[in-house]
């Protein structure tokens, strides 16, 4: 999609770009703040175990410009990295100890994604798990494997506003969770948290706006903010380390903890820390009687960050969100000069309130807008001007500096040389479980560079045994596994069902509204069935392929009728680049059954 938009000239222009429809309102914020196992905030990367020094780490992150006079913004990497380390370890991060670079964990594998985490649990190599705000027992593939994995843990901590299936994986719910509770030794700790409507803070949408929101309700019962729980965990662990000692506790005990109430950090305190602040006065090199940065002040933006330890910044791309001008994320001025759609004073957009990334690309090589009816930015002879914050140095001459300043060559890339396992161009592979052989490469099963753990390949079924293609999806009445806990939503879609075509129903003598069993190599579910015209058999490689549609909103907790999720059936494998599990295509069989006696 990005390649297509680039070819069509739809990058950096008004109404162009990509709009990822994310599954949650703040998933952009999750990746921005480095919650991926291989990232630290602002898309800086966790060092690998081979990068034993800061210099070694920086040596592959220099990003020298590849063309004369090109601007390569990642040249500032070290300023962002050192400021991040200063925000973590403050006075304990000095030039002499490479700003506490050693305190950072080092990766021995490319990343600890959820599939790898549960695989390690399954192998008995991961003993404890803190599960904050998600429900893996229904979200990740091959539920039988997940239950086995969770049963091998010594402890499981679940932080969630809802009583999730994951927190109750040990509880027997008849056929819906048929476990032998007595044989499970995992200690499970449920910590009730507040939900988004009871929190203050910011959400980042996929347009990169950080919108501040305020609590709309008082938390129920014993529910606590996630920040309170994390702070309490930290303080208690720190006290234990200080009392009892322990191997290499410095990264934890030396952390900066500047909050007014150490046990309950406030959202605005954290936002200010993320924005960044000045640790020491920085004199003006042209006039030593003046300072360009004053100790104790918030930095204006990441342009002020330095690699000498005089600035701290939690997440460089968010720098500017809460500076000396105040909480810019809380701005609610909906002015939109000349109706460009930029709304520059509504909330705050990273980076530096820029609303459209690569916006210099909206103008041609002479600096004039490609489309005069959609003007965004133009060169006025001396500088870039227009409706948005220029995504280039304001005085960078249009015919000299290319617009894609995050790439050392300054141009957009139709492909990447090294960043993706499955590349440089996307190629078509059938899913690991496919009703047909790959028409392009019949001997190749699945994606040859996808990661498959030992034992999972044997758990893949084939079309002889499982002739039907299944897929999973959401319904409009529900949001993931949350709204089944709400009585009203539960009444609007009360019970688990699967959907099949009229043709498959006729073939298998299945009646609309009746009961069916659907099973894969990995599991079996019982469901009501909806025989619908909305699903038609496909013709794939000359063969008729029937489809079983499996909506995903039911489990054994909540206000709906108890039911199953598609993950009882799905294979334990992710895509080759980012390990998103293969939920959209797998193989099953289906048969009519007699329903339970009501």
């Amino acid at each position, binding site marked *: 999609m990005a390649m297509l938009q680039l070819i069509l000239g739809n990058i950096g222009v008004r109404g162009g770009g990509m709009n990822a429809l994310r599954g949650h309102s703040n998933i952009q914020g999750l990746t921005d703040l480095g919650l991926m196992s291989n990232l630290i905030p602002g898309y800086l990367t966790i060092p690998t175990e081979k990068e034993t020094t800061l210099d070694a780490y920086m040596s592959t992150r220099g990003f020298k410009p590849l063309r004369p006079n090109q601007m390569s913004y990642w040249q500032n990497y070290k300023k962002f990295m050192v400021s991040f380390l200063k925000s973590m370890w403050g006075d304990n991060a000095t030039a002499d100890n490479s700003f506490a670079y050693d305190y950072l964990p080092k990766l021995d594998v490319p990343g600890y994604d959820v599939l790898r985490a549960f695989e390690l649990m399954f192998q008995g190599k991961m003993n404890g798990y803190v599960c904050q705000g998600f429900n893996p027992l229904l979200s990740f593939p091959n539920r039988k494997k997940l239950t086995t994995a969770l049963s091998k843990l010594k402890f499981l901590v679940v932080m969630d506003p809802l009583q999730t299936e994951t927190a109750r994986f040990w509880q027997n719910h008849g056929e819906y969770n048929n476990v032998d509770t007595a044989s499970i030794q995992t200690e499970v700790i449920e910590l009730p948290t507040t939900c988004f409507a009871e929190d203050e803070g910011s959400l980042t949408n996929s347009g990169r706006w950080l919108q501040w929101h305020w609590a709309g309700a008082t938390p129920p019962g014993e529910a606590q903010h996630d920040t309170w729980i994390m702070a309490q965990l930290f303080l208690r662990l720190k006290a234990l380390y200080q009392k009892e000692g322990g191997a290499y506790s410095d990264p934890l005990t030396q952390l900066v903890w500047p909050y007014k109430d150490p046990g309950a950090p406030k959202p605005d305190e954290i936002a200010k820390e993320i924005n960044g602040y000045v640790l020491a006065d920085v004199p003006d090199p042209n006039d030593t009687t003046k300072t360009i940065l004053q100790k104790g002040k918030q930095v204006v933006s990441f342009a002020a960050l330095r690699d000498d330890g005089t600035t701290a910044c939690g997440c460089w791309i968010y720098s500017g969100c809460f500076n000396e001008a105040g909480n810019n994320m809380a701005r609610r001025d909906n002015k939109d000069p000349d109706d460009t759609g930029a709304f520059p004073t509504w909330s705050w957009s990273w980076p530096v309130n820029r609303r459209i990334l690569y916006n210099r690309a909206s103008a041609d090589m002479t600096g004039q807008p490609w489309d005069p009816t959609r003007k965004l930015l133009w060169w006025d002879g001396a500088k870039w001007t227009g409706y948005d914050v220029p995504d280039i140095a304001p005085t960078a001459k249009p015919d000299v500096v290319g617009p894609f300043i995050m790439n050392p060559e300054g141009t957009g890339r139709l492909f990447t040389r090294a960043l993706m396992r499955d590349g440089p161009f996307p190629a078509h592979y059938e899913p690991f479980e496919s009703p047909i052989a790959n028409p392009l490469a019949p001997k190749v099963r699945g994606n040859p560079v996808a990661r498959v753990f030992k034992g999972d390949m044997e758990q893949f079924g084939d079309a002889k045994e499982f002739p039907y293609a299944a897929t999973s999806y959401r319904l*409009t*009445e529900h949001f993931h596994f949350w709204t089944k806990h709400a*009585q*009203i*939503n*539960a*009444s*609007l*879609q*009360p*019970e*688990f*069902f699967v959907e099949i075509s009229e043709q498959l129903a006729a073939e298998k003598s299945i009646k*609309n*509204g009746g009961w069916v069993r659907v099973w894969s190599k990995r599991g079996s579910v019982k469901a*009501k069935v*909806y*025989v*619908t*015209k*909305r699903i038609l058999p496909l013709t794939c490689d000359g063969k008729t392929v029937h489809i079983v549609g499996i909506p995903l909103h039911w489990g054994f907790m909540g*206000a*709906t*009728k108890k039911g199953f999720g598609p993950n009882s059936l799905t294979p334990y494998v992710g895509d080759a680049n980012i390990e998103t599990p293969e939920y959209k295509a797998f193989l099953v069989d289906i048969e009519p059954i007699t329903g339970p006696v009501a």
Partner: protein
Amino acid sequence: MAFEFELPNPNTQNPKVDLSEADLVRRSASSVPAPTRQLTPVAKLIDVSKCIGCKACQSACLEWNDKRADVGVFAGSYDNPADLTPNMFTLMRFTEWVNPETKNLEWLIRKDGCMHCEDPGCLKACPAPGAIVQYSNGIVDFVHENCIGCGYCVRGCPFNIPRISQVDNKAYKCTLCSDRIAVGQGPACAKACPTHAITFGTKEEMNKHAAERIKDLKSRGYQNAGLYDPPGVSGTHVMYVLHHADKPEIYANLPNNPRISPIVELWKGTATKYLGLAAMGLMVAIGFVHHLVEGPNTVKREDEEAAKRLAGSGRP
């Protein structure tokens, strides 16, 4: 603009309308004085072509009216609950319809509920004074303290909308959020609708908005797109934009030409008044003859004891 013409967003500002007894134009089984003012007629417009079937309207309806529908079962369709209930005043009805001309599947989703008829069959059928009222802006509302639960309104309704509660034996249906409208809010369903498939305003505004929508639908090949504002009930204050207005019945049996049942018209027509007086006279005459033949009723001792037992129940 890529469009042939502008497609404006519908108005979402609602004027405050103080609804009071003085604004009633009809009151069941009784008469009202002529109102001193005429309120601007209002309407809810449901554009079936813009509906995505999310049921946010149902959810908002339950929330605002503080009702809860039972968690039922999957019964072979997306309709949930399976029908309107005394708690569920509105319901998405889903139909998978194959257009015989294009052979395309069209997933028709109609939001069912009270149509707020200009000529309300429920009100005309209602024998309880003041249980059903109509305001001069067109809203037909049920006044529950006056309802006797007889169910005549159900029979009188050409759209089969009211439902009788098994809990309090009173009839319930959509109020057009008369309580919200009275404070300048639109109906809860319209407010919740994410696609502006449900809009609310004056009937004039809604007619105008409907005309724009119909023009748009016709430009997209729906030659029979049109407004559903059935003349058989003198028009309604809930109207539909239908892509196939020539076939309303394909939308989960939306009546082609809804009319009040002739029995209700007979029951409430002027002729019945005199017929009724004659019947009453006849009953008096029969009673008089009965008294002459059978004598007065007397209370026996068993009757007294039974009455005491029933009334007292051991309480002082």
